[in-house]
């Protein structure tokens, strides 16, 4: 700061000296030349010095500051320099002296949410919605139940939409139809998109597209209202699942999906093998057990059904499908 001040004084001194050289009534060429040289040096010194004494937030743009200060000082001899030193610098510093911080004000409660809402209404379960759709007398109640299915996962919403599709009330029926159609359109669009990218050179991308196709076509099969077309779609899904697994055999999700597809097509040996591979690749065995139990049931190996279901027990002893497991583990179950 001291150095800057000295340079500042120097530049002012040079500026005054240069102007004095023009004091003669008839200045000579030498005078003018000397004036220009001294004036130039003074402006240069000022342009290099002044930015360093400005407040911190005005020191950033070096080039712009330099050009501005130099231009003002050079093209407005003496007055420009004096204005910069005795006008601009104090003004900028004065601005920095902020008003004393006010005390914190307690503001009124804002309209924006600042807390989580208290959920006084219980979440409605798919079972409750099924009851409403099947038994409620008022069409408006059934319509409301249908709108509530928008909060559910597709796997839970779908059976409810199918029930609503057969409702006697036009409003309910038409809304269920349009919601189902929307799901179908979304899946069909995704399938078209994946199909269009299937010819990519990248093996990894091809795998991802096959996996997406298998998944979406499998979901589309669930939307089907007739068994024939559903089986055709399952077959397409199987083709894509197998194609994907040829590119990446260790994908547990895809193995698991293949198992479900083959189970739907009653290929029990294939399904069992796919579920086992899925388990080896990392799928939790408890996720696989219900399907192995189903296969055992179809193959009439009833004694195995209970053991598969019991193997689903969690570490805390909680047993999903416990009623089912209890039934199959009580006594012998023989084929009829």
């Amino acid at each position, binding site marked *: 700061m001291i150095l800057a001040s000295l340079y500042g004084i120097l530049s002012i001194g040079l500026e005054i000296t240069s102007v004095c050289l023009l004091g003669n009534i008839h200045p000579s060429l030498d005078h003018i030349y000397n004036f220009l040289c001294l004036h130039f040096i003074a402006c240069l010194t000022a342009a290099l010095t002044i930015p360093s004494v400005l407040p911190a937030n005005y020191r950033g743009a070096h080039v712009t500051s330099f050009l501005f200060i130099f231009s003002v000082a050079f093209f407005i001899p003496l007055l420009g320099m004096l204005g910069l030193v005795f006008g601009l610098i104090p003004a900028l510093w004065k601005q920095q002296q902020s008003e004393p911080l006010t005390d914190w004000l307690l503001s009124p409660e804002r309209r924006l949410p600042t807390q989580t809402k208290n959920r006084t209404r219980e979440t409605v379960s798919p079972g409750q919605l099924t009851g409403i759709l099947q038994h409620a007398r008022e069409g408006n109640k059934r319509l*409301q139940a249908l709108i509530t299915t928008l909060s559910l996962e597709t796997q839970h919403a779908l059976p409810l939409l199918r029930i609503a599709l*057969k409702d006697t009330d036009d409003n309910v029926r038409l809304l269920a139809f349009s919601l189902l159609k929307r799901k179908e359109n979304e899946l069909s669009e995704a399938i078209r998109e994946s199909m269009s990218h299937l010819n990519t050179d990248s093996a990894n991308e091809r795998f991802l597209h096959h996996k997406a196709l298998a998944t979406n076509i499998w979901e589309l099969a669930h939307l089907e209202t007739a068994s024939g*077309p559903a089986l055709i779609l399952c077959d397409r899904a199987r083709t894509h699942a197998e194609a994907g697994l040829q590119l990446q055999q260790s994908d547990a999700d895809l193995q698991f999906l293949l198992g479900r597809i083959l189970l739907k097509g009653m290929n029990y040996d294939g399904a069992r093998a796919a579920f086992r591979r899925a388990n080896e690749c990392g799928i939790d065995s408890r996720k696989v057990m219900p399907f192995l139990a189903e296969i055992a049931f179809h193959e009439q190996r009833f004694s195995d059904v209970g053991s598969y279901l019991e193997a689903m027990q969690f570490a805390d002893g909680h047993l999903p499908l416990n009623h089912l497991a209890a039934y199959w583990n009580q006594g012998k179950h023989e084929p009829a």
Partner: protein
Amino acid sequence: MNLRDSDSDPDSETDITFLLEGTYPFVRGGVSGWVHDLIIGMPELTFSLVYLGAEKKPDEKLRYELPPNVHHLYCHYLMDLGPSATPKACAGDDAYFSKSAQLHEWFRSPQGELDETLFNSVVLQSGRKKGACTADFFYSEAAWSQITESYSDACPEIPFLSYFWAVRNTHGPLLKLAEIAQSLPPSRIFHSVSTGYAGLLGAMLQRRTRRPLVLTEHGIYTKERKIDLQSMFLQDRQGRFDEASESGMEHHEQLWLRLFEGIARLAYAAADPIISLYEPNRQRQICDGADPARTRIIPNGVDVERYAPLRVLRPQQIPKVLGLIGRIVPIKDVKTFIRTIHALTAYMPDAEGWLIGPEEENPEYVIECKELVYSLQLENNIKFMGFQRIEDVLPRLGLLALTSISEAFPLVIGESYASGLPVLTTDVGACRMLVEGSDEADRALGSGGSVLPISDPEAMARAAYALLSNPVRWTAAQQAGIQRVERYYRQAQTVASYREIYKAVGRK
């Protein structure tokens, strides 16, 4: 755009002016056919047509040859608000917007009929210069105040832009209708074929000219719009914990619902009589605000003499062909028809399904249907025939199949009966009544086919097989259908009913 018959005096009063929204004479379908038949059936009366569309389409053309007793055709497009003038700042008419606020309050919670002075000043815009209301609404400070106040009161949590455009798009057509109502020439009677914008125009004309308004509803316009709006606005809410409104829609989306419900009430208040095609629809009209004393039922009728000669053209053996005669649109659930054919081919490999109807209304849906045909490998069994003369196809069909998700009173069932063709239909609208009979005497005639659940292709395939493979049963259904249509659903009865109505209201 106004097309006028150059030979007739544009200021001469016609007997009946039909108010038609998105239908005759530019769109083919049941309602259009009904209007056309009614006009032909009353050659002694003169008609004008006022067609209301959204926007003029480049491929728009007349789908019907206008009968000679149609003297005028006026076409108006409600989304075409005219050349946009340079916005000019203006204060606006505070008194008008104050009344407008009262009207909006009535729309929100309607109590009784709307005050007539409110209707005249706000809806009809009586006493105001042409275009003044439009300019006020779009540019004035008073309008802006009203919009911003409503927004702050009703739904400050949604984006203002969404609310603003919902308000603008709902009100624009109404302002246009007011201008149309001021410009139409006189008519002895106005006859609207729906509520909605056509019904509101009818209410405006009834108030302005004091001429009677007759209202016939084939479907229920408000219900159909509600379904359209719900399918557009309802969003999946998985994982979201906000409390959705009961309708599942945001406030500005419900503006549309309230608009259509409100203008339906205005149409019902102005119309006498209010006609529907069958009892459940009449009940629906009463629920939506129609005065029960003004409602009546006039079922659709069929020109039996036109179709009866087709009976002798039928082949000896029943053709193994199911026909779906109608527009290829989602509400007809054409995909269930295709799946039905797929299921039927398991019992009858040579069975065919013909899709007979215009395909231009929803080209994406047509593509989906064709993709489904391809994926089910039914290219040899299913034919997309496009629009055909119904007389050419009816004798070649073995059954008419109607797989619709929703219908009112499908004329095609009557036409099939008259030509000697049994039907399979879903249990929607008046279909069960048409197939099985309405009263004891009607039911005694027997069943004209089968009624099946919606979206159940396997059930429909079984019913089709049961009829096509059993000539005795098929013939019994054929005879029941012929007797039913000849006794209860002749077009002459429908035309005579409307002639009586026109005479009665014309005298008032």
